[in-house]
């Protein structure tokens, strides 16, 4: 009996971004790492979830963004571009990481057929689990459709290579140019010592149309066309190209044709603009590149001259799907049109190439479709599993990665325990939509915009059309994250139901019935309630000051010992003003020797009165609080609340006979780099005067 797979995350309520991501990337943790300048940790997080993180940083269809709760306020957080930023910011680290010894591989061998995202992900996981995976790729280049079809203006090969190099460094062997079913028979792989086989061959072939004239010269199939377009001898096209289809492959074909010199490119698709299966942003970019999209038309016949294509006759498509949503196009044969064409590219769908099954017992369910169990991933033959698009049908790269993970689990269980593992489809529970009344109170922050290359420049060649975020843009974008589900938690044992949280919550979400509660689907994690709770009963899921206090405990006395004549200042600085980690790292390293201890805080308004006094407890002479710049605080009322606590801390100092002026409050001006050091100098100078007196 197959064993049921358990997922320890089932009981946790997730943020919608994480739940929507097929590989459940912990996006909020990712963003938090970025905000803190911990790009290497962010990289580790990404690679643990998805070995194709560089690729997905470029081309992911980002379901995380589509489900981002910030959409209700302004626009989703640019998580895909943030991912790209991390991958670009850590290339050196990744290089050195790759050179470290991979864990030793075991003896058991697994054969993976196909080096696309699903196959290589499975291979990567299996290597990490101690197997010896060998990947067979029929094309000369690894990467599946990523390497052999997706145009370089979207995905440069160097990007795919980065991911594949990591996978190879884990001990995965990739044999390109070997076609199973021709060069080696599937069943022979068992004889060669492979204990399990995974078919992950994807959908590498294009479907064709059964209309009159389809065999004319000048008619091309999309995937072979895209493959050749990547080769040193790209196809020669005429001036007028028609692409039939409305999906992502059709879009790739049309935009590639434009770049290969076609003057007039027209897409013909059955669907209306809203129904087109291609991603919305791809459709917009396509239109920007001067490609005409003729929606709600179907091909009727090809007309030719002497066997060479001259154009396409169209008929009006009145409906694409039937009442139950099944693909069943209806046409109005009386409403027709024609488009002239020197080439027609057919991009109406893909199919698998099942050459690898030659001579094997693996059953087929239809043309190019392998019979397989969607929960155990087993084909009709023991020891042979299948994953990815060849069995799931067309999907995104990240979905293929997810299926690769599942396949590795299935094979590991099969080889390790000798039984099959059932992995039913699971939907992670998430907190749902942001309530309107909360959304209306959230500060609007425009996303860091990245302009694409101008359309007329784009179509000149295959240069990548999008640039990555700069560090400042990435940090600004990361701070837009609403940190869903990381909000305040009240300790019922301690809560005195004093209502302070209810009275100060700037989003109106805190409630007190018998004790305080901050509903996770509403709380914005500003932490104002936690800083103000008189019972110290509220804590933020992902913010605390204990570590900071411990650091001060060792740092401040040590500095005072080393430089007894210089007044020592602790500076709590708003981390959100950081535009680059270099400055902060340098400041943290060098300023203590000059008597300044910078401590980065993700929103200084989260500091309680006791937190503000803590530097003095360990011997600091002064405190400099540097908040964000005017008008840039994320949380309404936060600054006023902080200022009240600053006054409270000052009055405590006065009560014990210390000068209130030992505490300075500044607002960042311009940027951290521009203003912070000036504030430190001014405060230190003032403090020297105080100490002299």
């Amino acid at each position, binding site marked *: 009996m197959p064993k049921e797979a358990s997922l320890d995350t089932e009981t946790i309520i997730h943020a919608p971004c994480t739940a929507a991501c097929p590989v459940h990337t912990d996006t909020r943790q990712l963003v938090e790492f970025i905000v803190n300048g911990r790009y290497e940790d962010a990289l580790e997080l990404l690679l643990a979830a998805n070995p194709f993180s560089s690729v997905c940083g470029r081309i992911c269809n980002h379901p995380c963004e589509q489900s981002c709760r910030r959409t209700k306020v302004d626009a989703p957080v640019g998580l895909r571009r943030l991912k790209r930023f991390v991958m670009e910011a850590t290339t050196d680290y990744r290089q050195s990481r790759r050179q470290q010894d991979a864990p030793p591989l075991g003896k058991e061998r697994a054969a993976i057929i196909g080096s696309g995202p699903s196959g290589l992900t499975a291979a990567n996981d299996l290597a990490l689990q101690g197997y010896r995976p060998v990947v067979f790729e029929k094309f000369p280049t690894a990467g599946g459709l990523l390497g052999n079809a997706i145009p370089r203006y979207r995905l440069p090969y160097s990007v795919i290579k980065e991911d594949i190099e990591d996978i190879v460094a884990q001990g995965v062997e990739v044999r390109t140019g070997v076609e199973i079913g021709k060069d080696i028979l599937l069943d022979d792989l068992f004889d060669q010592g492979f204990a399990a086989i995974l078919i992950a061959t994807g959908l590498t072939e294009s479907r064709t149309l059964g209309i009159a004239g389809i065999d004319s010269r000048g008619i091309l199939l999309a995937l072979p066309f895209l493959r050749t377009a990547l080769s040193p001898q790209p196809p020669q096209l005429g001036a007028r190209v028609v692409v039939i289809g409305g999906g992502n492959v059709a879009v790739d074909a049309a935009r590639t044709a434009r770049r290969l010199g076609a003057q007039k490119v027209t897409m013909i698709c059955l669907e209306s603009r809203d129904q087109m299966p291609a991603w919305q942003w791809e459709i917009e970019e396509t239109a920007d590149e001067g490609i005409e999209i003729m929606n709600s038309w179907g091909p009727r016949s090809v007309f030719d001259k002497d066997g060479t294509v001259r154009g396409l006759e169209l008929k009006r498509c009145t409906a694409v799907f039937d009442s139950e949503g099944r693909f069943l196009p209806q046409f109005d044969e009386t409403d027709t049109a024609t488009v002239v064409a020197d080439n027609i590219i057919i991009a109406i769908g893909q199919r698998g190439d099942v050459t690898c099954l030659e001579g094997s017992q693996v059953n087929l369910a239809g043309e190019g479709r392998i019979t397989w169990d969607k929960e155990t991933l087993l084909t009709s033959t023991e020891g042979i599993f299948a994953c990815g698009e060849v069995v799931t049908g067309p999907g995104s790269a990240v979905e293929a990665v997810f299926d690769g993970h599942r396949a590795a689990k299935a094979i590991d269980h099969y080889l390790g325990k000798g039984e099959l593992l059932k992995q039913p489809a699971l939907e992670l529970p998430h907190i749902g939509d942001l309530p309107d009344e909360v959304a209306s109170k959230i500060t609007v922050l425009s996303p860091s915009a990245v302009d694409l290359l101008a359309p007329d420049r784009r179509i000149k060649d295959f240069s990548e059309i999008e640039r990555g975020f700069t560090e400042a843009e990435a940090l600004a974008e990361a701070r837009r994250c609403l940190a869903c589900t990381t909000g305040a938690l009240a300790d019922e044992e301690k809560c005195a139901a004093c209502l302070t949280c209810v009275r100060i919550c700037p989003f109106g979400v805190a409630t007190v019935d018998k004790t305080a509660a901050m509903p996770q689907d509403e709380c914005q994690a500003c932490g104002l309630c936690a800083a103000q709770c008189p019972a*110290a009963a509220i804590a933020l899921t992902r913010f605390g000051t204990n570590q900071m206090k411990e650091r001060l405990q060792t740092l401040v006395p040590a500095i005072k010992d080393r430089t007894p004549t210089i007044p020592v200042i602790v500076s709590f600085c708003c981390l959100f003003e950081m535009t680059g980690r270099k400055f902060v790292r340098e400041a943290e390293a060098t300023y203590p020797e000059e008597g300044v201890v910078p401590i980065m805080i993700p929103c200084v308004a989260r500091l309680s009165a*006791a937190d503000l006094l*803590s530097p*003095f407890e360990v*011997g600091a002479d002064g405190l400099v609080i540097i908040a964000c710049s005017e008008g840039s605080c994320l949380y309404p009322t936060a600054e006023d609340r902080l200022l009240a606590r600053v006054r409270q801390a000052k009055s*405590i100092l006065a009560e*014990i006979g210390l000068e209130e002026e030992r505490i300075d409050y500044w607002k960042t001006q311009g940027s951290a780099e521009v203003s912070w050091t000036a504030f430190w100098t001014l405060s230190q100078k003032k403090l020297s005067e105080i100490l002299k007196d």
Partner: protein
Amino acid sequence: MIVAERKPLAEIRTFVEDYRRILILGCGTCTTVCLAGGEAEAKVVASGLRISFLREEREVEILEDCITRQCEPEFVEAVEQKVKDEAIEAVLSLGCGVGVNLVAQSLETIPVFPGVNTKFFGGVVEPGMWLELCAGCGNCILHLTGGICPIARCSKSLLNGPCGGTRDGKCEISEDVDCGWALIVERMKKLGTLDRLAEIIPARDWSSSHHGGPRRVIHEEVAVLSGEEETSDR
């Protein structure tokens, strides 16, 4: 609710000056709610004292704790143990006067000092502001005065007001003080019972107030039954 206010640290310092291990004890009920002596305030007081002793290079250990209610012997028992275990030399209670009393009674040989001034029985009239609303006089007449207490709210605690010192709703003693009787009149108007104020409230018996030693309230239903103590282990 009992409303209190933290004493200035300079004054607190004088109480604990001579001790080397001091426990700052917050109270998790009234003084938490009125922001005078909960766990967060205990941390602030402890921090202030630590800074203060540090400036003089004196090695004084300041510990913090907070219990549910200092006015209950059962809750206070835990403090007794802590004081023993931690070799505490003095306790600063941030509970109201009741808490200080009970903690002091329980600890017997360890000095217990008040960290707050217990002010009054009151409530929040706006966030951050507490107002005295009840004088605890022991003989409630709020049914006669529209739910507004003349003993607490009238500066003279008049039973038949207002007096000649009422000025546009304010009391003659300060523009910041509402005339309690003006409030009563307005409330009675809203209730449609203004005519009741024509009846003179007779001079009252004040013996229920702060006279004749500490007052008691007894609930026999939960009182210790006779003989119970003898059969207990103690």
